[in-house]
């Protein structure tokens, strides 16, 4: 009974914030980018599942012990696979497609837009300004 009580207390203590507000803010932001492994599409910051609670506790422990954000991410990834990361990694081909793709599209779009505009200008030597 006492052991049970103790474990409940630990479980509850898990959601107690860290003393240092800056560390707590870092921990909370990590909780928002790590995925609860037992839930459907929810970060650990937003799940009532026991595993999410354990994960929150682990994040706070690691931050409290002085781990960097990246060390926390790496620890969870080594434990649960990259599935746990809501911020996908930038490495490899898939990382490049995901992280560079949108900006590349923007550049390509801008180039196409500029070329279209240039062609339009070539259509006519004189463009009159006209107010709407």
């Amino acid at each position: 009974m006492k052991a049970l009580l103790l474990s409940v207390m630990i479980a509850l203590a898990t959601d107690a914030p860290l003393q240092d507000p800056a560390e707590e803010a870092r921990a909370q932001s990590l909780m928002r980018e790590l995925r609860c492994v037992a839930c459907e599409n929810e970060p650990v910051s937003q799940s009532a599942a026991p595993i999410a609670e354990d994960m929150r506790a682990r994040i706070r422990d690691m931050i409290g012990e002085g781990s960097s954000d990246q060390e926390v991410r790496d620890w969870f990834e080594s434990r649960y696979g990259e599935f746990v990361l809501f911020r996908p990694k930038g490495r490899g081909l898939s990382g490049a497609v995901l992280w560079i793709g949108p900006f590349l599209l923007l550049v390509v779009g801008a180039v196409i837009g500029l070329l279209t505009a240039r062609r339009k200008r070539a259509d006519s030597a004189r463009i009159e300004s006209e107010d709407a």
Partner: protein
Amino acid sequence: MIEAGHFAAFLALGAAIAQTILGLRGERRWAGMTAIAGFGLMAFSFLTLVHAFAVSDFSLALVAKHSHTLKPMLYKIAGTWGNHEGSMALWALVTLGFGAAASVLMKTDRATFEARALGVQGFLAAGAMGYLLFASSPYLRLDPAPFQGAGLNPLLQDPALSFHPPMLYLGYVGYSFVFALAAAGMMEGRIDRVWAKEARRWSLAAFVPLTIGIALGSYWAYYELGWGGWWFWDPVENASLMPWLIGAALLHSVIVTEKRENFAAWTALLAVLAFLFSIMGAFLVRSGVLTSVHAFAVDPKRGTILLFGLMAYGAMALGLFAWRGPGLKGAKPWLVGSREGAMMANNIVLVVAALTVLLGTLFPLMAEAAGRTMSVGEPYFRLTFVPILAVLLVLLPVAQSWAWGKADMTQWTRWAIAGAALVAVFAALGVGLWNISLGAAFGLALGVWLIGGAIWELRRRAVTLKRVFRVSPRVWGMTLAHMGVGLFIIGAVVETTGRYETTVALAEGDSGEAVGWTLTLDDVGSIEGPNWYADKAVLTAVKGKVKTVLEPMKRYYPAARMPTTETAIFKTGTGDLYAAIGEQRVVDGKARWVFRVYFNPLIDLVYLGVLMIGLGGLFSLVKVKR
């Protein structure tokens, strides 16, 4: 009753087929009449379904599976579309409804064009009706009828969520009619001023309900899920955001076609894309391809049929564009520094933003197909989608004053100085006073920039201050919408950077500190509703002289064997004090309740901003006779 409705649905399918044939043959009057007949028949059919839900007729399999006698009437009725078959019936009804409305409201003096648009709409309606009747029938009987129904997902028993699907469908299906107009315009090779006037109206008619529908869904997630967030970058949310972004691009592009007969092919393509993204959104949600907290009606077998339909529609729509699109030519020349250039920038950024959402949403699915599990979530979109859109929003106040063809670019330096000053002020305040990140300070500056820019532009259009209330509703619509974007950004930035959350465990009679408030747990009692029972906490919250009572609940719905959270929200004027009740635990020998308490500053601006965007759309629809 249901049999009559079932029969009427078959007749409606017949009417839709007739509408397709007559419409494509160019018979405007007959196509219009069949469109109205089809809608009338399906409306009757849909009402028989609603009736069966209202009176809890459990001999209907759908009612038995999704309803319950103890449910409040609103949720019995909303239960009609809170399931796969019923929502498809609603989809088909709205598709026919847009055809009927268009047959009355279209005024282009081009009979053949209008007939063809009705024909294409009839074709889409026939597809929806065929799917409904042959793959997803809501009309099936049960024998013997059970005495009680299995209930509706309790999460859906909520006023905001009752009207969320009909609003979204009005938006999604609205774009099907915009597509029908584009298809008819491409068939006759005329995407011109007259076409654009008509298409613009229908684009707005789709955009406004889509905006409201998304806002309702987001507000529901905010207070019902109990985690204090309002946008989760969940695939189902993304599915509705993509057509919204394309729709916003279309609203701007179609103006260029209307005023200058430029961008004809591009506007047609955006109309096609808005339609395809809409049905893809419906497919993603309804097929069960995504596992997500929001996708309630899941069925992979039907998903295959829907996917096939999506690909067939996509191939036809894009094929039509590839065939007829290149023939469409813009009329007047323009420079980069012109309103055309500004609209082009708008379109490029919004389309790239939509594609970014698409990439982030589908990438995990593709990875999974390749045997790799991964996740894409909020941090990804914050680092890609947000800066991409920011590029456009920085430009907006400057470029919205540009003239058609060739803009007066001498104002550049003034704008640059004003913008730089604004950023400098907010950066100094943000870092020095508010202790927020530079990114957040920039976000606030951007919000103020947009609101100020919108007012500046209104003033410019009105020429003198006295004439501000005499500018056209369209200009007011634009002003409201652009100010709405600014308000939304301020709300979103303040809420996401300034939100704080804590957990407190209280026994009855205890007090605790959370997010700057002193909370006292007066009582936790059991109460009973029509189809649920609940633990309800009474918390007194005090901060300085302000005192309020929060009553969060944890409900349990026995029919569905599911719990839900009902959060308690107190609007302090600067934000929401938000409490959700969690588990009961024994700590230090005492039974304590765990509460999650949040303070969400300026969250109302998020919703106010989105509502203003919708209101701006409504204003833009108003036509003034001069």
